[in-house]
């Protein structure tokens, strides 16, 4: 169980985290979603006892990060955002080393990492620095797991990993969650949010929402439309000038915009036609997590 209460942390004049609170139950897969620079890594360093917060407390299974940090360190697994294994050691040597650092052996907990390690076992004599991005992350996860941690902290584990490996990685997290390991994971990819039990959306050091992905989407109480036309750049400029449109953002190949009611759709269509836009498509859509993130607050 992880309990974060009113954490604040500033670096010089930069407020990295501001009054952040959440709790994750045993066996929960909790996602912290936000772009680079939102404060995710700072929060992870505070939860893993590496940094002291300016305000607030963190309890990991009822142990305080201030007084019981040695006890916490024995019982958590941490995978930093940057690949941080010994590049000049082989895959097997890395895993062996981290097992012995935690006073255990590969054999003792092999059942835990088997599903993950079996992917990289054929390369066990390869230097860690020579692995591909996806394999590096699998090795790092194996090393973080080898001592059977109660809580697993994964800081952007899928950044820089190909889509197939990302999917595999999330499947592995489900297996771990199912054997009762609490997992706190951060990611800048909004599409991964739906794979978490609950998520926190973080923006400039503030949690703007903490809930299940479904609830966050259901609570989006505005009308969302998607727009398309031949000249997308001009379209975005013109859409933003429409009085019925509250705000609009480019969203992949479309423009997503918020309006007050469905009734305005025809009106907007006519306005854009009069501005010489060709092949205009406007339709109502249901929001994704990214929409919720962009239009929150």
């Amino acid at each position, binding site marked *: 169980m992880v309990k974060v209460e009113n954490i604040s942390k500033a670096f010089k004049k930069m407020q990295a985290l501001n009054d952040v609170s959440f709790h994750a139950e045993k066996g929960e897969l909790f996602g912290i979603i936000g772009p680079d620079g939102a404060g995710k890594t700072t929060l992870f360093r505070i939860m893993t006892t590496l940094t002291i917060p300016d305000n607030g407390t963190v309890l990991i299974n009822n142990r305080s990060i201030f007084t019981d940090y040695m006890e916490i360190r024995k019982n958590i697994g941490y995978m930093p955002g*940057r690949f*941080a294994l010994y590049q000049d050691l082989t895959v097997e040597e890395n895993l062996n080393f981290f097992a012995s650092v935690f006073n255990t052996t590969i054999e003792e907990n092999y059942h835990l990492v088997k599903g993950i390690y079996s992917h990289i076992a054929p390369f066990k004599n390869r230097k860690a620095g020579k692995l591909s991005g996806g394999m590096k992350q699998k090795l790092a996860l194996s090393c973080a797991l080898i001592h059977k941690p109660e809580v697993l902290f994964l800081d952007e584990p899928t950044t820089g990993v190909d889509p197939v490996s990302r999917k595999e990685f999330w499947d592995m997290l489900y297996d771990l969650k199912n054997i009762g390991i609490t997992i706190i994971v951060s990611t800048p990819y909004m599409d991964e949010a739906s794979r978490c039990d609950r998520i926190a959306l973080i923006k400039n050091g503030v949690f703007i929402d903490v809930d299940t992905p479904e609830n966050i989407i259901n609570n989006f109480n505005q009308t969302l439309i998607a727009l398309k036309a031949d000249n997308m750049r001009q379209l975005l400029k013109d859409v933003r000038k429409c009085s019925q449109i509250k705000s609009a953002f480019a969203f992949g190949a479309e423009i997503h915009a918020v309006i007050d009611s469905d009734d305005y759709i025809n009106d907007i269509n006519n306005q854009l036609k009069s501005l010489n836009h060709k092949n205009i498509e406007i339709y109502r859509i249901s929001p994704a997590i990214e929409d919720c993130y962009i239009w929150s607050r």
Partner: protein
Amino acid sequence: MKQLLSFIKKEVLHIIRDKRTILILLIMPVVQIMLFGFAMTLEVKNIRVAVSYQYGDELAEKITARISASEYFDIVKTINNPLDISSIFKREKIDTIIVFSDGFSSEIYKGGIPAVQIINDASDPNQASTVTSYISAIISSFQNEIAGAASPVRINTELKMLYNPELKGSYNFVPGVMALVLTLICAMMTSISIVREKEFGTMELLLVSPMKPAYIIISKIVPYFIISTINLLTIIVLAVVLLDMPVRGSFMLLMGVSFLFIFVSLTVGIFISSLVANQAAAMLIAGMGMMLPVMLLSGMLFPLDSMPKFLQVIADFVPASWYFTAVKKIMIEGQGFMNITKEIIILTIMLAVLVIASVKKFKVRLG
């Protein structure tokens, strides 16, 4: 214990995998001994001398023969016409010209005062003054022989060079190389290997583990301690075998003091690693910051006694200068433990201060 052993094993793997570095570490002392022992010697040898005297002058010829017999001088030219002297430095590669006055022998037999002029190429002042004193010594000993008992009162100065009668430079630089190599390997390599963990982010993982900070430090020290010991033995063997360097005092005492100094240097490395955040800075501080004081302020190249007072005070804070003195006392003067207690005590105090400072500076959390 198993934790510590596997950590040490990991450190050894790092060192072995980096073939270039380990090669440099093991070869560096050999190269330095060779360089200082044979190439970069301060001793004066093979001086090219030209002599000028009147043709057939008996005593001038005898003196010339004596100078020629010395291992320091090669007589490369004999001039019988004094007018050539002014142009000879320009035309030929000559270091020194000795000019005997016309009628040198007859002047002596008459009881007069003959003159000998020594003209030096003083573009290297050290060599010029050494050459002058060597030649003067040869001439005055010759003078004593031919004058015999009949000469008027004179004071004979008898020189005795204690501990190093041949004035060998190696007696000074071998202890210097020992101090230099041990400082470089211990301080630089230890600090780099700790800082590398910070730079690659692995320190973050080590901190979020039940690993005791003391274990991290000990496992960083052990491999370099072993390498330093190998280097130390290499230097001593090479110095004794190739350079005829004596070990007059107790060998165990020499090793004991060296181990003390190795520990001081290792803690210097640990301390440096707690100050800097990347390998380049560690290399700069440990490399330049340690190497220059060791070379310039230990007494290895320049005598400390003739330095300005403030430099002497700075030198007192350089561990290598105390180690240098202790090694010279043991190896060359053959002194026992009682006579180097001062050096041992000071090095021990330095070690204690550095250990306390490093432990205080070691962070159990991220900066």
